[in-house]
Every structure is written in structure tokens, then in C-alpha cells.
């Protein structure tokens, strides 16, 4: 009977940790920094951090889908730079509104190419996207002759710097909409179930009639779409699109958020909410350490250790739920 109770308690804690572990870490983090530095707890700083978390947060949606299917996309940093320089160079010719739409189309197309290479040429996603990382970056350099594209179109700039009712930064609204749509797609539509099925066991998924290749192409295309949205927001924040400096180490930041959020690298299991909270943790942590005058190298140490700590807690959750060893 005692064993049974212990198992039940373990399971309850596992479920609690699975649902509230990361949000709890986030709240503790914000509380600690707010006590340590009063300037951290201002609404301005909070909204500023939320707004900048969209840079990683939006692409983390696409990466969650990709990793859930058991794949990787490490080309997204270069893709972000290429999409940003292409999109912003359209502005003088077609205007801001059409340029935004064209940018998203181009981004989807680049993701689609990745998906085609992975599925039709049977090249592992890691190799394909590693190759495309070089191709996209080189194309960005070639297209611009390594000269940044300056953006003055107010519609485009609004995506990074606009405020709804003069208060809420527009990137926060966009990120919210992206997460709601992605949640509906993943949890309330057959496509979402197919993504989970492909990631859990692609052979079984194929035998049950799911077109595995099409699902993989779809998730890579969605990855492109979310990178496209991030590229517009980021270039609007910066007021320019720089082919060399944009998206440096971006893929690692996004993968860090997704892994920290509890998505299993082996595929199948994933959490959009986890990815969002992880993106918030990373942004708020960096901001807090910066305001606390923590040396930048120690900031990297702290980020790395927190990631390892959070992933080990995630493993603890599965152990408590009786779904794995610790």
C-alpha cells in the first residue's frame, strides 16, 4: 500500500512538474531579478522583454514541429538573413504591404526546399540543413554584395516597433496569434496528430496511411513561414537587414528554447507552451543578468547550466511518471 501511495505521489509530482515546472522557474527568475534590481520589474522592461522574446519564440514554434517529426533545421539563422535582405529589398519596388507578403512566400519556399531535399533525396535533415546554412548565407551576401539594406517603410517597421493602442508592442501580438494558431494545428487538427505519429514512429505512421513525406515537407515549410515572420520583426527592430550579422547563432538559440521547453530530440513528444516559456526564460534571464552587470562570459555559463538543469528536471518528470529511467 505504501508503495502504491509513493508511486501515486511521484506521479502527481510528475504531472505537476510537467505542467508547471517551467512557468515556476520563469516566475522565480523574474521574482529574484525584480528584488535584486527595481528597474527590472517595470512594465516597460517587461514589455520590452516580451517583445524581444518573439525573435526566438516565433521560430521556436516551427522548430518544435520539426523536432517533433524527429528532424532538425540548423539553416534557420542563414535563412533569416536571406529572407530579411530579400524582403526588405522588395520594399522600394512593391511597397511595404506586398513586400511583407512576398517575404512570407519566399520564406515558405526556402523551407519547402529543405523539406524536398530531406524527403525526396533522402538526405538526413542535419546534413541538408547544414548545407543550406552555407547556401542561404552565401546567397544573402551575393544578393546584397554584403551591403546592408536599410529600411524606412513605416508599415514594415511597424512589425518590430509598433505598439497596439500605443502600449503593447506588436511583436507580442504576433507571437500570441502564432502560438494560438500553432496550438490549434497541433492539438485540434488531424495534421497535428499526423506530426506526432510521424515523430513517434514514422514506419507505423506510413503503414497506417499517413503520407510521411508530405507531413515532413509541411513542417519544414511551416518552419520557413515562422522564420519569415521572425525575419520581418527582427529587421524592423534593427531598421536594416544585414546579410552577415543577422541570424548569427540563431539556430542554437531556437533549438535551446525548444529543448529547454521539453520537446524530445528523438521526436514524437513536444510542447508548444514549453517552447514559449523557455523562450521567455532565455530572454528575461539575459536581460536580468545584463541589468545586474553580470560579466557576459558568466552569462553564457549561467545560460548553459540552466539549460542542463531544466533538461535534467524534464527527465525527472518522465521518471516520476514511470516513463523512463533517471
Amino acid at each position, binding site marked *: 500500500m505504501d508503495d502504491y501511495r509513493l508511486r501515486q505521489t511521484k506521479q502527481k509530482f510528475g504531472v505537476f512538474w510537467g505542467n508547471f515546472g517551467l512557468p515556476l522557474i520563469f516566475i522565480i527568475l523574474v521574482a529574484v531579478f525584480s528584488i535584486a534590481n527595481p*528597474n527590472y520589474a*517595470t512594465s*516597460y*522592461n517587461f514589455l*520590452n*522583454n516580451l517583445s*524581444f522574446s518573439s*525573435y526566438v519564440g516565433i521560430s521556436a514554434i516551427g522548430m518544435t514541429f520539426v523536432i517533433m517529426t524527429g528532424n532538425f533545421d540548423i539553416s534557420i539563422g542563414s535563412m533569416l538573413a536571406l529572407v530579411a535582405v530579400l524582403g526588405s529589398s522588395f520594399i522600394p519596388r512593391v511597397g511595404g504591404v506586398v513586400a511583407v507578403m512576398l517575404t512570407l512566400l519566399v520564406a515558405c519556399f526556402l523551407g519547402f526546399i529543405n523539406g524536398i531535399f530531406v524527403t525526396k533525396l533522402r538526405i538526413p535533415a542535419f546534413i541538408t540543413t547544414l548545407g543550406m546554412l552555407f547556401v542561404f548565407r552565401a546567397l544573402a551576401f551575393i544578393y546584397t*554584395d*554584403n*551591403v*546592408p539594406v*536599410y529600411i524606412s517603410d*513605416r*508599415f514594415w*517597421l*511597424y512589425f*518590430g*516597433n*509598433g*505598439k*497596439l*493602442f*500605443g502600449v503593447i508592442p*506588436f511583436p507580442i*501580438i504576433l507571437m500570441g*496569434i502564432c502560438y494560438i*494558431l500553432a496550438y*490549434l*494545428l497541433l492539438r485540434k*487538427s488531424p495534421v497535428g496528430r499526423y506530426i506526432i505519429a510521424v515523430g513517434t514512429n514514422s514506419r507505423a505512421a506510413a503503414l497506417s496511411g499517413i503520407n510521411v513525406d508530405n507531413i515532413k515537407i509541411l513542417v519544414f515549410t511551416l518552419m520557413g513561414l515562422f522564420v519569415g515572420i521572425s525575419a520581418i520583426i*527582427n529587421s*524592423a*527592430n*534593427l*531598421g*536594416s537587414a*544585414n546579410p*552577415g*550579422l*543577422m541570424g*548569427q*547563432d540563431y539556430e542554437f538559440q531556437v533549438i535551446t528554447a525548444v529543448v529547454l521547453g521539453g520537446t524530445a530530440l528523438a521526436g514524437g513528444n513536444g510542447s508548444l507552451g514549453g517552447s514559449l516559456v523557455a523562450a521567455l526564460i532565455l*530572454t528575461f534571464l*539575459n*536581460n536580468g543578468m*545584463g*541589468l545586474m*552587470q553580470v*560579466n*557576459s562570459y558568466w*552569462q553564457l555559463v549561467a545560460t548553459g547550466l540552466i539549460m542542463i538543469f531544466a533538461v535534467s528536471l524534464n527527465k525527472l518528470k518522465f521518471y516520476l511518471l514511470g516513463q523512463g529511467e533517471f
Partner: protein
Amino acid sequence: MKRYLKIAFITAICLAMILTLSFIGCAKEEAAEGGMQVKTYTNASDITIGFSLWTMEFTFFQNVEKGVKDACEDLGFKYVMIDQNSDATKMVQDLNALVGQGVSGIVVTPVDPGAIGPAVENARKSGIPVVCADIGKSGPVNALMISDNFKGGQLAAEFLAGKINDTAKPLGLGNLLPQWTYARQRGEGFLAKAMELTYNVAANIIVQNPSAEGGYDTMQQILSAVPDVAGVYFTSGREAVGAAQAIQASGKDIWSVGYNGDPEEFQAIKDGVLDATILQEPYYIGYRSVEILKEILLDGKFYENVEIPVDVKLVTPENLDQIAADILEKTGNSAFPAE
């Protein structure tokens, strides 16, 4: 499927409406503002200077930071520094965070000068003056302290011409990437002076990998393209040291000049590997940037988009020790690498 199409359609319509309404609201808000009103102070102790720095990885930036910090101490200001970690997105986030902290003035050494426009505009709208300490700017700032890079390039060409003394012999240039608009003037000054002195710059190659290895590779390319090159000028410090090592490895007698005055360059000149460098004054750039903010915030002086050139000097084996002693006296830092 129809249900999902309906959801997507409704979402797109809602998003378009939000975007349109808030965009119109924003347009009115922007039209109502504009211009800059600086909040002035009477007590130095009420002033906090925020400094956003490219990176603490390189000596040049460490000296800019020391200059800013020392000036804040000397003038009685509080001081907050945030490291951009060579990340343009973080730079913008940090600048906004400094505005949120309510600093009185900002000094920024931007990793991407093209990307500071909106963040600087945001700071200035909040009444916070911004001074760029080197690198460059985009859009209006209060002041930009920038090395006289064109003159530096001219000094390098004059030095090489004086040593080679034969206009038939070709020169080489290891140039910077086109995105560094202000720093590219180092190459432009060199090319203009070389032309004036009737020297031919037979190879003008961009160092694609900004590092000592990049300098080494580029020098090898110059040696392949122009085997009889008599003198080379590399527009950045580490690249120049790499290039000088490639010259030494080739066994050829080629004059070499760098730019920056990094400790590695001082050591290379002392060791006879590099022949000269153009010295920038990062400590002075940082210190003077804070003095300008003091003039704006305490004295009420008007600065709007003012570019202030900072003088550069030629360092050769002849004046190396004297200049190193001056640097030590002014900054407390050795001009040579730490042992």
C-alpha cells in the same frame, strides 16, 4: 478541412484589422512627437550613463570601456554597462532596456551601426541623448566620435611610399567588408594617397574572415596575384599581424602596415614582424563621449548629429616605446600583450 480554412480566414481578417487600426494610431502618435527635448540636470550625482558595448573580447573595446568608466568616475556620474556580445538584436534590446532603466544619457559602440536607428530614435524620444563611441551610426544621434580613418589610410600610404621609394613597385591592400562604412575610409584614404603619390595598388582584396588567419590567407592571395608586391596595408590589427606572419613565412622583403594599435601589433612591431601601424585612441574616444554627454546634460550645450573626428598616429619602431609609455600613463594599460 473547411473549418480550419474558416479559422485561418477569420484570423487573417482579425490580424489585418488589428494591424490597420494600430498602424493608423501609431501614425498619429508619431506625427504628434518628433524632435528631441533633453532633460538637463543640475547635480552630477543625479546622472546615470548607460553604455552599450560591442564586446569586451578585444583590447580596443576594453579601452573604450575604460575611458567611459573613468570619465563617469571623474565627473561623478553613475555608470551602467551592458555587453552586446557581438549580437545586433541584443544590442537593440539592451538599448531599450537602458531607456527603461531611466538612464540620463547613452554611449553606444554598436556591433552593427546600421541597426541602431530605431533604438536610438526611441531613446531620443524619451529625452535621452545618445553618443556613438566609434564604429558608426545610422539615423540621427547627438554626436559620433569617430577616428579620422581617411587620414589613417593616407598615413599608411605615405609610410610605404617613403620606405619603398620607387613608384614602379606595386602595393597591396587587405580591405574591410563593405558593410563597415566608416572603417572602409581607412582603405579609401590609402587608395587616394597612393594615387596622389603615383603608386599602383595592384591588389585590393577584402579580408573575408576578420581574424589573424583571415589576414594570413589574404596575404597569400596578394602574393599569388602580385608576386612582386613591395608593400601592403591591412586595415585592421589582427589581420595585419596575420599578414605580416605570411610575409615572414614567404621569406620576401615586403613592408607591412596595420591599423588599430592593438597589443598584438605593438608586439609584432617590437619583434620586427610588422613595420608600422596606425594608432587609434579608444580610451580617449570613450572618455570624450562621456564629456560630451556632460556638456549636454549639465551645461545645456546643443549637439545634434555632430561628427567629431579623432586624430590617429603612425607607430613605427622608432616611436614605439615613447607611444607605449604615453598609453600606459594615460590609460594605465600596457600597449603590449599581458604576459
